[in-house]
């Protein structure tokens, strides 16, 4: 990735990234998963949610390097979209109600003109007649790059603040 340099808050480029993130959240929160995938995601996407364990401080953060809850490519993300459109995706039909809250956006430019974007994510999820939400909090480590003059999601790593996940499935997009 080279040595990245910070993009200042308030700069045109920073505003562009935040607008991109907001647009993405809107598509995901309004069930426009296919549009999100086809217009905002690179065909070479690597999309991962690593598994985490509780371990002692001296042994690191507990994130596994090669074990995941989700480890997706463009093809497998498309499988999920097609599945949800199949009429038999019982887990998400009726869909759960989700809301992405994205904050603490930090943008760095890496040498190869990619944008490294760290942001904090909170997903609020309810379904059926639930009143207590499922909350999924974590950090997204994204890499955005320009493809055919359009900003695309090229890498996404989701670092959840959980080891045991109390949600009935991970059928949602982070």
């Amino acid at each position, binding site marked *: 990735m080279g040595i990245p340099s910070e993009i200042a808050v308030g700069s045109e480029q920073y505003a562009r990234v935040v607008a991109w993130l907001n647009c993405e959240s809107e598509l995901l929160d309004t069930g426009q998963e296919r549009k999100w995938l086809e217009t905002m995601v690179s065909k070479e996407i690597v999309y991962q*949610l690593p*598994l985490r*364990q*509780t*371990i*002692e401080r001296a*042994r690191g953060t*507990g994130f*596994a390097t*090669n*074990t*995941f*809850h*989700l*480890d*997706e*490519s463009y*093809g*497998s993300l*498309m*499988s*999920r979209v*097609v*599945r949800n459109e*199949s009429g*038999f*995706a*019982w*887990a*998400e039909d009726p869909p759960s109600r989700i809301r992405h809250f994205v904050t603490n956006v930090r943008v760095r430019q890496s040498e190869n003109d990619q944008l490294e974007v760290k942001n904090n994510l909170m997903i609020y999820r309810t379904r059926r007649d*639930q009143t*207590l939400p*499922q909350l999924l909090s974590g950090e997204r480590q994204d890499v955005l790059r320009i493809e055919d003059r359009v900003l695309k999601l090229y890498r996404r790593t989701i670092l959840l603040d959980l*080891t*045991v*996940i*109390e*949600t*009935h*499935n*991970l*059928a949602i997009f982070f």
Partner: protein
Amino acid sequence: MSSGQSTTRKPSNFSEQVLEELRRGLPRGEIPAALFGNDEIYNLELRKIFARCWVFLGHDSEVPASGDYVRRKIGEDNFIVVRDEDGEIHALFDACRHRGVQICRADSGNTDIFRCPYHGWAYDTKGNLLGAPLWKNAFGGMSKEENGLLSVANLATYHGLIFATLDPTAPPLEEYLGGMKWYLDLVFGLNEHGIEILGPPQRFVIDANWKSGSENFSGDDYHLGTLHRSVWAIGAFPVSFPDNMMGYHIQASAGHSLSFSMAPTEDDPGPKFFAYPDDLAASFNTARIDQEQLGVARRSRVFVGNVFPNFSILAAPMTDDGVHFPPTGVLTIRTWQPMGAGKFEAWNWFCAYRNMTPLQKERVYKSGLASFSMGGVFEMDDTEPWILAARTGRSVTAEVLDFKLNYKMGLPGVGISKRTENWAGPGVVYSPRYEEGVQRNFFRFYSELMGAERGSWPKFSLD
């Protein structure tokens, strides 16, 4: 999150009444709904089932070196599964002998000492009490030998799978597994290398009853056509619903059931050896199994089974991306850890044969993750009916209207499945798979154990 707990008070003999209904109803395939949500039943299960049976804790490849440990559960309680300096594996009750404080601070790690954070009692990897601060002043004269960590009553491994029991009167593991051994052999022992675990387990909590997982993996194939219909839409699974109903339902021994999706003949097109890659399948041999076991594995498309009470196994052809990769053999093992009548934690491990190439291991892992994990296209739908069944399980209406769950498929006069003697392995065998005797076998052993006093065991033979 909805509460998994029932708030209704039941008469104290309610659980006895439910268990009597179970005993009476089982031969007719009728099971009281309260088994899936009643607190009294659940509290009995912790004592009658989990505090007695052989319970799966992990695989020996998870603790390869001396001092390696993982924290695991029997019932609701934590155990430290640790390899000692001599290479032996122990399962130690995670409670300091002084004030009962849990001393294992992490899900996994490596250590030579477990030290209690309260007063500093310290134990070695065999559970021996090594000492405590200012020992002479505080405890001089007291025996260290009598104050080691408590251990399970018995621990044993089979193909590297670690099981333990809290009941010293439990029969040896191999006797407990009985006919199930023959089938575990042909899943985990297809060659001399055996299997290894790929990474730490996924853990997720669901508002449902643990038995929903166990009975489903005992051989519920019929739900694929409806609940998992979406997997055909995305090409994740290569066998059609009617074809996949071909095969065998097997009550391997008391409580343990399994199911094979299997081609009618050896020459039938379609997946062989659960769709493991050809060059891996070429390494399968009779080093650990006999020719007949190898023959059964060769014809197998899917293996799904449950070792009573809560250890489930699945081998099946899956892919994460049907457009670019053909389905490959995926092997996942899991436990359904009870957390209440209406709550359990699923632990999910992926396995690979040790002699797979790194690329094959990656394909197996990705395909397994995309299908049988909490984000997988198969399993994400499974949790849905289990949650809804648990609601009926704690329903007062189900109680007062005497609601019975239906497990009649395959009973005499119901459906086309027939008992067959034309089968190489042990157990009571039915074909094709339109049959719920595999679940009735689970509940029969369950019913007998729930009525058994500590020290006495139901018979393990099936007929």
